[in-house]
C-alpha cells in the first residue's frame, strides 16, 4: 500500500499539490483531472521521482527515499521514446536488470518469458527507434514489468496511441496481477477502475467509485465557461 500523509509540493512560488493525504490500496486506481492540476506530480511522487516539500510518501511503510520502496514501484512514462534507452529491444528490456544480481542467461530468460507472455517475441531483435508508437508503448511497459514491481504507475499511457493500440494496451493491462495506478484523460479507461481520484488545482476534489467520479467530472467540465 502507498500512503501519502499531508503531502505538499511547491515549485518556486507555485503550489503544485496542497496537503494531500490518501491511502492507495485498491488493485486499479485511476487519477483524473485537467491539465496542470498536479496529476503527473502526484504520480511521480509515488516512486521518488518527485520529492514532497512537506509531508511523506511511504510504500509499504518505507519512505520513497529508500531502495526497498523504489524497487516495489515501476513507472511508465507518457512518451515511450524517452523511456526506451537502448538501441535494441532485448537490450532495453534487460536494462533495468543490469544490477539486479541475475546472470546474463537469467536476464535473457526473464526478458524472453515476458515477451512470450504478451505475444511479442517477434520484437525481440528489433531496433527500438524503428518500432511503431504502439509497439514502443508496449515495450516501455514490459521494460517495467521485467523488474517485477508490486505496483505500476502509468502516466497517460493511452494518450499517444490510436484506437487499435489503445485496445491492445488496455487488454494487456487487464492481464496484469500488479496494483495499477493510472493517470489519464481517457475517461472510458478511468470508468473501469476500482477507484478514481479527481485532482484539481493541487487538491483532491473527488475520491470514490469510478462511475460516480467520471460523471461528476464530466458535469463539472461541461458547466465551465469555454
Amino acid at each position: 500500500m502507498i500512503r501519502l500523509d499531508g503531502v505538499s509540493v511547491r515549485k518556486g512560488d507555485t503550489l503544485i499539490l496542497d496537503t494531500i493525504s490518501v491511502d492507495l490500496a485498491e488493485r486499479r486506481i485511476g487519477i483524473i483531472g485537467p491539465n496542470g492540476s498536479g496529476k503527473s506530480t502526484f504520480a511521480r511522487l509515488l516512486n521518488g521521482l518527485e520529492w514532497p516539500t512537506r509531508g511523506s510518501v511511504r510504500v509499504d511503510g518505507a519512505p520513497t527515499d529508500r531502495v526497498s520502496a523504489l524497487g516495489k514501484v515501476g513507472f511508465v512514462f507518457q512518451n515511450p521514446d524517452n523511456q526506451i534507452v537502448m538501441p535494441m529491444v532485448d537490450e532495453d528490456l534487460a536494462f533495468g536488470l543490469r544490477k539486479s544480481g541475475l546472470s546474463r542467461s537469467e536476464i535473457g530468460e526473464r526478458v524472453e518469458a515476458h515477451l512470450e507472455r504478451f505475444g511479442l517475441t517477434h520484437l525481440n531483435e528489433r531496433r527500438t527507434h524503428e518500432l511503431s508508437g504502439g509497439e514502443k508503448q508496449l515495450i516501455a511497459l514490459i521494460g517495467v514489468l521485467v523488474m517485477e514491481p508490486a505496483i505500476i504507475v502509468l502516466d497517460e499511457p493511452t494518450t499517444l496511441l490510436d484506437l487499435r493500440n489503445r485496445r491492445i494496451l488496455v487488454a494487456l493491462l487487464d492481464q496484469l496481477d500488479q496494483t495499477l495506478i493510472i493517470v489519464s484523460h481517457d475517461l472510458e479507461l478511468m470508468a473501469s477502475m476500482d477507484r478514481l481520484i479527481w485532482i484539481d488545482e493541487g487538491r483532491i476534489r473527488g475520491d470514490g467509485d469510478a462511475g460516480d467520479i467520471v460523471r461528476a467530472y464530466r458535469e463539472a467540465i461541461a458547466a465551465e465557461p469555454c
Partner: protein
Amino acid sequence: MLTSDYVPGDSIVHRARPLIKVGLLFLVCTWLFVQEGWPSSTIAGLILAALFAIARIPPTIIVAAIRPALWVLGLIFVAQLFLADWRFAGFVVLRFAVMILAASILTLTTRTSDLVDAIERALSRVLPARSAEAISLALSLCLRFIPRVRGIFEEVKNAQRARGLGTSWRALVTPTIVRALKSADEISRAITARSPETPAGRHVR
C-alpha cells in the same frame, strides 16, 4: 554512420570479443595515419570488404553507414584539390572512408550492450566503478539517441518549412536544442525510474 544499426548474425566477426574489435579499430586507424599512402588504405579497404562479406552485411546497410559522411568527404576532396592535387585528395578521402567503415563494422556486428559491458569492464580497471558505469552508459545513450535527435531535427525542419522559415538556421537550431534538452531531462528521469538500485539524482539512503 555510427548509429545503432546492429545487424544480428552469428559470423566470426559477430562473435569476436568487443574489446578485441575496439583494439583492432584503434590499431587500423593509427596504422592508416602512420603508413600514409594508397597501398595501406587499399589493403585496409580490401580487408574490410572481406570482413563485411564474412559478416554478411547487406551492401545497402554499408552504403547507409557511410552516406551521412559523404558531404564531409566531398568537402575534404575539394579542399585537398586546391591544397594539393587529385591524387592526394583521393587518398585522403579513401583513408577517411576506410576509417568510417571500420568503425561501422564494429557497431554493425556488436550489440550495444556487449560493447558497453566490455568498455565498462575495461574502464573499471583504471577508474572507480561508478565513473566507469557512467561513461559506458553515456556511450550507449549516444548510440540510442542519434536517431532520436535526427528525428527531432527533421520534425523541426518540416514545421519551420511549413511556416516559411526554411532557410533560417536560428529557427531550426534553437527549437531542436530546446526539444533535445527537454527530452534529455525526461530520459534521465526514466533511467532513474528504471534503476531503483542506482538512484542517481534521488536522495536514497
